[in-house]
């Protein structure tokens, strides 16, 4: 056994953090509320529209325009210290009138707490919410994926573009409920696009500018790229 690292028994939690418990047999609704919810109510007032406990986890509904402030306060405040962003995602319900929810799963490693922050976006309004990239660097790819799958614009994200689908994907946002399972285009059209993809144009103009490689490309390809062709990733 090597000796160059130490074994630690407890987690990274502080000494006064509650002991870990297995959440078994928690009720569907109700139960112990995360103390951060009350602190948020006190701090932000009516920006917190609703607090509920579902299967042992506390949901905090915030107004979308205040989401960044709320999360920044949760991150910075010494009594909260939600320093770990587990996940950023969104939910669209089957009910067509119900708004889309953007969800942040936050963890406080020092206090062993888990909080789910939700912002409801009306479907008819532009799907926009402020990016938390300035607080958590891990939001970079998670928000890009959320944008890719739901079309939610994260204002303030430094590089918001598709991540799992290719940039020229024109069929829409796959995880939206109005998106059919097989895609919007016909199989014939999907096949035609796949066969017509230009594997040479796999670099973005930004990448080609790295080495001034653009000028070294064949003339014909340069003209095609200059014309905005970006088929294939």
């Amino acid at each position: 056994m090597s000796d160059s690292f130490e074994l630690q028994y407890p987690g990274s939690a502080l000494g006064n953090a509650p002991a870990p418990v297995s959440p078994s047999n928690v009720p569907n609704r109700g139960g112990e509320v995360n103390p951060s919810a009350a602190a948020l109510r006190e701090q932000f007032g009516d920006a917190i529209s609703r607090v509920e406990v579902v299967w042992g986890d506390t949901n905090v509904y915030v107004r979308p325009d205040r989401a960044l402030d709320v999360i920044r306060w949760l991150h910075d405040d010494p009594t909260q210290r939600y320093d770990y962003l587990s996940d950023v995602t969104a939910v669209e319900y089957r009910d067509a009138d119900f708004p889309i929810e953007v969800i942040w799963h936050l963890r406080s490693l020092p206090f062993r707490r888990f909080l789910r922050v939700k912002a409801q976006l009306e479907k008819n309004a532009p799907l926009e919410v402020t990016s938390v990239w300035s607080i958590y660097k891990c939001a970079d790819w998670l928000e890009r994926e959320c944008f890719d799958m739901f079309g939610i614009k994260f204002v303030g994200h430094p590089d918001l573009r598709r991540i799992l689908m290719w940039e020229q994907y024109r069929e829409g946002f796959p995880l939206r409920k109005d998106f059919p399972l097989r895609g919007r285009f016909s199989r014939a059209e999907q096949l035609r696009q796949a066969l017509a993809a230009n594997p040479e144009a796999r670099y973005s103009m930004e990448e080609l500018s790295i080495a001034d490689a653009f000028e070294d490309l064949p003339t014909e390809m340069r003209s095609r790229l200059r014309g905005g062709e970006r088929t294939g990733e």
Partner: protein
Amino acid sequence: MATQKRTVDVALSTTGVDAQGRPQRVPLVTADDGSPVAVEAPPMMEPDLAGEHMLINIGPQHPATHGVLRLVLELDGETVVRCIPHVGYLHCGFEKLGEYRQYNQILPLTDREDYLNAMGNNVGMVLGAERLFGIEPTERCKVLRVIACELSRIASHLVWLGTTCIDIGAFTPFLWAFQQREYIYNLIESWVGARLTPTITRVGGLAADIPDGWLQNLRTFIAKFPATVDEIDKMLTKNGIWVGRTIGLGVMTADEAINWGLSGPMLRASGVAYDVRKDFPYYDYETYDFDVPIGTNGDVYDRYLVRMEEMRQSVRILQQAADRLPDGPINVDDPRVILPNKSKATSEMESMIHHFKLVMEGPRPPLGEAYVAMESPKGEKGYYMVSDGTSKPVRWRIRPPSFVNLSAIPKMVEGHLLSDVIAINASIDIVMGEIDR
């Protein structure tokens, strides 16, 4: 003193003969009078290339990218200035597919996302589904699920170890690791019949109980496996090449690692002792006696040490689980999710209707949502499910640990050499099936 550099013929040189007496040409540097002088550095032969950056593309079809990852690198000489990763080549739309499937039908999808940790994913998925149903599995089921998790953790770490060794240039540990992995897959095969895609769990229980004598085979594996870890440890940990190729690479400090959302061995190598099994335990992990290894420097070498120690700790957990495995049913007694006995389903009308409705319509959880996290070999793996009361989830989301871990690669490789990019990328332990989903 004026010097000249010239090459003289061996015939004229007394030292120009090698040990076997064969003539050889030796360069001599002499002063004008023929006396030897110190050699000066040769004039710069190569043109000055400073300022010109190069574009290098790695992947998506490259063995060192562990799948279909594509990295576009901007190089200054051999130093990486910028790294632009591209993912998505293996996108299967599992999250979309999950919205069209019943909870038990989603399980085969979890086999295929992080395919090195298939059993662990099955367990995580039903952990979330059972939270939605409000079900607590039986004691025997919980212990068997812990065994499944830890076995697949060892298997996943062995693949990581073997492939990383190959990336860095050692081939032998790969064979040792894959031999042990084969034993694990034999155990899985004798349990459920499948090897890579076992789909071992069901909501409320397991697909199958362990067969007779299986526990004995597990104990044999537990007894023999640590010797292999020790052997690889002896070969690599103090190996000059291994240390030279891994130490000080891709350093993430503790604060950075938390802020970039790293989890699992990546986070613990940076000195943050966050382990879901300890901090937010599930399946009675708080009652098992095991340690969480943490590193200090957060570099590739510490990640290697942490993963090696995690395999030993997993063996400890396996040992305790095998000792405490109670008798009893593996499925909960809950008609909402568990099929009736097969003989009853073919002989009694009520049981047949029950069977039909469970298979055709599927179990229906109450309205609600659940985010469960489990410690996968890659890190914190989360399953987030939202139910609207029907038998299919409104939203089924995987929180992929290696996706988030990989998002930090531009930061980690910056300023390192091109050959170190391979070692840093290997240390993240990515599985593209999970990243692209």
